[in-house]
């Protein structure tokens, strides 16, 4: 303890290794491209769940509007791809060639100003990071400086998700409306619809995910991570120890927003369209469930939780389409009642002790692991 806390604990290194093995080797080798693309779609949500672990698990700020940020990232990417797909040659049958098809259908004759920056890939990628951060900063500053928290904050974020959905649907000519932005084709001339592109995009996504995981682990191990925990527990004590509690909450919220936005941008690339159905209240709540199932205190749990829930969702809705909603509800109740710390909690309680006993010669790692029993990742389902 007298030394600096190690950058990553031993169990986290193992967790990273196991996850890398699963995502980089096992899944790509054992799944066909259709199934792998499904995994890629699931993984885009795990960015959101990861953000929620920091914001909700550590910071105690429950946001029921993460779909907003997922959507912002997704739309930023979709706007770029749509503009590229709407070149003058591709759209010469339109009354105004060179603008997205849905604008033409809505009698819009000129590209709106806020679409202009999305001609550039660099600016679009920048927007994926900056726009959600600014948006989250504004919401966070307005709420946390006024000491709005807990349930009230959750309700307000939910309202924002509803408002954004209504806005997107209502402003059809500018946003593509309820259908979203569809028929996306190429990224800088590279066709993203082919199997090989999907394969490559999968690995790009895994790389981004590991980037975000490392950022999350860094935050967790910094003093900021401990301040978030302290704030969740005794907000006043932190405030009267000389910290501006609001600023730390804003940071956690912004970070979770940027993670969600990266996930959204990758979703657009993987799936090939973006629509308001990923922005509203229902998807936002589903994202919270992913984090809850994985274990809201577990950085790795976020990834496994998202994959397990989405896998269950896909397989159940393939066989019993009507039953899925009930199963989803039952799953959430079961997790909250039986495993309040999610899969990671169950892992730490039942599986980790078994492993420790098997390798009991390694006494040291046991003591490191038991220091933060809640915060350790679950290295497998």
């Amino acid at each position, binding site marked *: 303890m007298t030394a600096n806390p190690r950058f990553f604990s031993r169990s986290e290194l193992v967790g990273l290794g196991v996850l890398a093995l699963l995502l980089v080797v096992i899944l790509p080798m054992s799944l066909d491209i259709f199934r792998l693309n499904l995994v890629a779609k699931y993984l885009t949500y795990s960015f959101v769940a990861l953000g929620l672990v920091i914001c909700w698990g550590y910071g105690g700020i429950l946001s029921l509007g993460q779909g907003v940020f997922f959507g912002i990232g997704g739309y930023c990417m979709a706007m770029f791809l749509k503009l590229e797909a709407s070149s003058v040659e591709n759209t010469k049958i339109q009354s105004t060639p060179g603008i997205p098809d849905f604008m033409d259908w809505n009698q819009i004759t000129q590209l709106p100003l806020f679409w202009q920056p999305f001609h550039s890939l660099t600016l679009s990628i920048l927007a994926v990071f900056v726009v959600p951060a600014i948006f989250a900063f504004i919401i966070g500053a307005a709420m946390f400086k006024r000491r709005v928290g807990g349930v009230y904050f959750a309700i307000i974020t939910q309202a924002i998700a509803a408002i954004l959905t209504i806005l997107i649907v209502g402003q059809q000519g500018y946003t593509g409306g309820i259908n979203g932005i569809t028929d996306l084709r190429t990224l800088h001339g590279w066709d993203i619809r082919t199997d090989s592109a999907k394969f490559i995009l999968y690995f790009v996504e895994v790389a981004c995910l590991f980037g975000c995981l490392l950022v999350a682990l860094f935050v967790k191990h*910094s003093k900021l991570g*401990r301040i978030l925990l302290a704030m969740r527990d005794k907000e006043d004590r932190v405030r009267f*120890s000389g910290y501006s509690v609001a600023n730390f909450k804003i940071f956690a919220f912004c970070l979770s927003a940027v993670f969600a936005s990266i996930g959204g941008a990758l979703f657009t690339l993987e799936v090939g369209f973006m629509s308001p159905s990923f922005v509203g209240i229902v998807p936002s709540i589903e994202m919270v469930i992913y984090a809850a199932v994985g274990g809201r205190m577990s950085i790795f749990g976020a990834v496994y939780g998202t994959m397990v829930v989405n896998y269950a969702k896909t397989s159940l809705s393939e066989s019993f389409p009507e039953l899925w909603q009930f199963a989803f509800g039952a799953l959430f109740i079961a997790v909250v009642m039986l495993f309040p710390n999610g899969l990671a909690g169950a892992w730490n309680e039942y599986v980790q002790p078994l492993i420790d006993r098997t390798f009991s010669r390694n006494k040291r790692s046991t003591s490191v692991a038991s*220091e933060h029993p809640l915060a350790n990742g679950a290295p497998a389902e």
Partner: protein
Amino acid sequence: MEIGQQPPDFLLAVDALTVSFDGFKAVNDLSFYVDENEIRVIIGPNGAGKTTVLDLICGKTKATSGSITFRGKELTKLSENAIVHAGVGRKFQTPSIYDDLTVFENLEISYPRGRSVFGALTFKRDAAVTERVEEVAEMIFLKDRLNMSAQLLSHGQKQWLEIGMLLIQDPELLMLDEPVAGMSVSERAKTAELLHRIIKNRSVLVIEHDMKFVEDIAHKVIVLHQGKILSEGSMEKVKNDPKVIEVYLGH
């Protein structure tokens, strides 16, 4: 009295302080002055406004009128964290510690460095931090419990830990709200010993009910009653004040 006219030897000057909650004046036109290195104890019956006074000084409650100056700075206009940075530390009535963190981490968070978001991200646990944490842990009798989760401490140890968290901030004015409440006799004696040691080179404002403890540590006592000062002076003087005996010490 205008700011600047006050004699500079007062560390804390509370002037005509009033706070009203929907018309109820919890603190009513209160004035008192605390010197450098003075230990001032506030006593009074329940609901006299003792904790509210501390809340007002540390910024938890905003004053309706009046002023609080600390080293010439007007505290009523500062945010809570700015008041801490100015050198005011406050301990809460119930032990306020972080259950999910270890004793070491509890103390480390209170170490006065890296208090901004960026500072907290880049904060390094260097030798100076470790040394100071260990030094304070020894003072608060928790040196052998540094790696223990704080939620496993006893009530008395939690109180000490919070006192330690204040010590590590090294405030010029330390405010303690019932530091020995709920402690066993031996813990109480140890706490008195601890307080005697830590009050050197700083001013302390204490709320306490335990009269033996008050007598032991106080330089000056304020008796608060219904938001006003009933009596002020040495413990001897206050104890023999008929008004005080009637409302407080009598029963």
